[in-house]
C-alpha cells in the first residue's frame, strides 16, 4: 500500500448538482498535501465526502487500503481520519470547554483527554480565558481556534483541515500555520485546503490546484512555479 489515503474517480455533489467529478488524488503517509483553489471549486465538498458527510455519486475512497465509501463517518474517526472543519461547525450551544471535551469522544482518546486539553489551552490561551463561554458567542478567529483545538483532541492520524485561515488576522494566521508546521514535524499526515496560497505552499510537500470541480495541477512543492500557479489560479492566459 503506497498511499495512506486515496480517491479513485470520486464524484459528489448536492442533490442533482455535481460539485466535482472523477477526482483521483493520493495522500502519502507523514506528508502534507495542500489543495488550493478559488472559492466554490469544490475543495470543502471534497473533504466532506472523504469524511462521509456527503455521499459520493461514484468512485472510491481508500484509507489504509480499505474501501471507505460505505463506512459511516464515526468509524472513519475511530480509524484516525479526522477533519477540522471551518469554525461554523462548532457546538454553538455548548461551552468552549465542552466543545473540547467532545473532541475526546472517540474511545481511544478519552484517557488522554486532560493532557490534550491542557495542551490545547497552551496553544490557544484565549480559549482558556473563555472556557465557560458558549461557543456560539465566539468571534470568527476564536471559533477557528476552537475548531482546531477540538480536532487535535481527537488525536488525528490523518488530519483534513478546511480553510483554517478563514476570517483570521494575518498574525493569527501565522500562529496557526506554525502549529501546523509542528504537527508536520511530528509526522502527522495533513491534507490542507486553503485559499491563502502563499501560506499553504510554504508547508506543503505536494500541491493540488482545484478549479471548478477538477484538478488542474498536481505537482510536488519543489516543482511548483508560483507564477504559473497563479496564472492558472486566476485563469490568466499568457
Amino acid at each position, binding site marked *: 500500500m503506497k498511499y495512506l489515503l486515496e480517491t479513485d474517480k470520486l464524484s459528489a455533489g448536492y442533490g442533482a448538482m455535481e460539485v466535482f467529478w472523477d477526482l483521483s488524488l493520493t495522500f502519502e503517509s507523514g506528508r502534507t498535501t495542500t489543495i488550493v483553489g478559488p472559492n466554490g471549486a469544490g475543495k470543502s465538498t471534497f473533504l466532506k465526502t472523504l*469524511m*462521509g*458527510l456527503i455521499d459520493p455519486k461514484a468512485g472510491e475512497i481508500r484509507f489504509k487500503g480499505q474501501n471507505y465509501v460505505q463506512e*459511516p*463517518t*464515526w468509524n472513519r*474517526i*475511530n480509524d484516525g481520519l*479526522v*477533519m477540522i*472543519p471551518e469554525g461554523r*461547525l*462548532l*457546538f*454553538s*450551544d*455548548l461551552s468552549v470547554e*465542552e466543545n473540547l*471535551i*467532545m*473532541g475526546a*469522544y*472517540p474511545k481511544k482518546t*478519552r484517557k488522554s483527554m486532560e493532557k490534550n486539553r491542557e495542551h490545547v489551552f497552551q496553544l490557544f490561551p484565549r480559549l482558556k480565558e473563555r472556557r465557560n463561554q458558549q461557543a456560539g458567542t465566539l468571534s470568527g478567529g476564536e471559533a477557528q481556534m476552537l475548531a482546531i483545538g*477540538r480536532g487535535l483532541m*481527537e488525536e488525528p492520524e490523518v488530519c483534513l483541515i478546511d480553510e483554517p485561515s478563514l476570517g483570521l488576522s494575518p498574525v493569527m494566521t501565522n500562529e496557526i500555520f506554525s502549529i501546523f508546521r509542528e504537527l508536520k514535524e511530528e509526522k502527522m499526515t495533513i491534507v490542507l485546503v486553503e485559499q491563502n496560497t502563499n501560506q499553504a505552499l510554504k508547508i506543503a510537500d505536494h500541491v493540488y490546484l482545484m478549479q471548478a470541480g477538477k484538478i488542474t495541477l498536481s505537482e510536488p512543492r519543489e516543482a511548483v512555479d508560483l507564477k504559473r500557479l497563479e496564472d492558472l489560479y486566476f485563469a490568466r492566459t499568457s
Partner: protein
Amino acid sequence: MELTAQALFTGLLMGGFYGLIAVGLALVFGTMKVINLAHGELVLLAAYIAYALESQTGLNPMLSLPIAMAVVIVAALVTFYLTNQIKKDRELNSLILTFGLGIVLTNGLLMVFSADIYSTQSSWFMEGVVIADSLFSMRSEMIAFIVGIAALGGLYWWLNHTWHGRAIRSVSSNRDAAKLMGMNPTKAELWSWGVAGVLAALAGVMLYVTSVIHPPVGHSLTIKAFVITVLAGMGSIPGVLVGAIMIGVIEGLTTTYFQSSLAELASMTVFLLVLLVMPSGLFGKKGAH
C-alpha cells in the same frame, strides 16, 4: 397566612410532579425537535401497568416500576422508530403521527381496562404527612415530589456530565459536527427516547399512587407537559422545573382562594402572559423559535 403557606406548599409538591410528567417530552423536544404528542399516553400506560400488577398480584405499585419502565421504553423506542421514518418536514409531520399514536394508545387502554376509574388500593399512600407542624400533604404527593426533583436533577447531571448525555446535546446542537467527533447521531437519539421512556414510566407510577386514572387522562397529561415545555423554553431542564413549579403554585393558590375549576384557567392565563413577554419561554434562547 397559614392558608397561603399551605397553598404554596401544595403547589410546590404539585410542581415537582408536573416537572416529572413534562421532562420526558422536553428532552425529546430539545434534542430532536419532535413534540411527542403521545407522551401523556406513555405516562398513562405506565400507570395502568402499575394498576394491572397491583390488582392481579397485589404488588406494591412502587415495585412495578421495572416492568413499567421496560414496557414504556419499548413503546418510546417504537415511537422513535416511526417518527424516524418521516423523511419530509419531520417537525410538523411528527405532530400528526404522535397525535395518532396517542389516540391508538388511549383506545387500546379503553379496550383492555374499560372506562372505569382506578386508583391504588393501598391506603399507605393516602396517609397524611405533616411538615413544620402546619404543612399538610399526602404521603404519595411527597414521594412524587421527591422522585420528580431527583429525576430532573439526575437528568440534568446526566446531560452535562456523561458521554451519552453530552453526545445527545452535541447531536442536537450540530449534527454534522457530532459525526465529525465520532458520534452516531441515531444512537444518541435512541438514548434520548429511551431516557424519556424511563422518565414517563416514573411519572406514570407516581400518577397512579397520587391520583386516579382513566383513559382520557393521557391526553390532558400531554397538554400539561406541552405547556410546561413551551413555558420552560426549548428543552431547558431548569426551565421545566421552574415552569412546572410555577404552574403548580398558581393552581394551588387558585384552588385555595377561588375554586378548583378555575385552576387550569389561571395557569393558562399566566402561561400566555409569560409567552407574551418572553416569546421563547423562561429559559429559552433569545431569537430561538
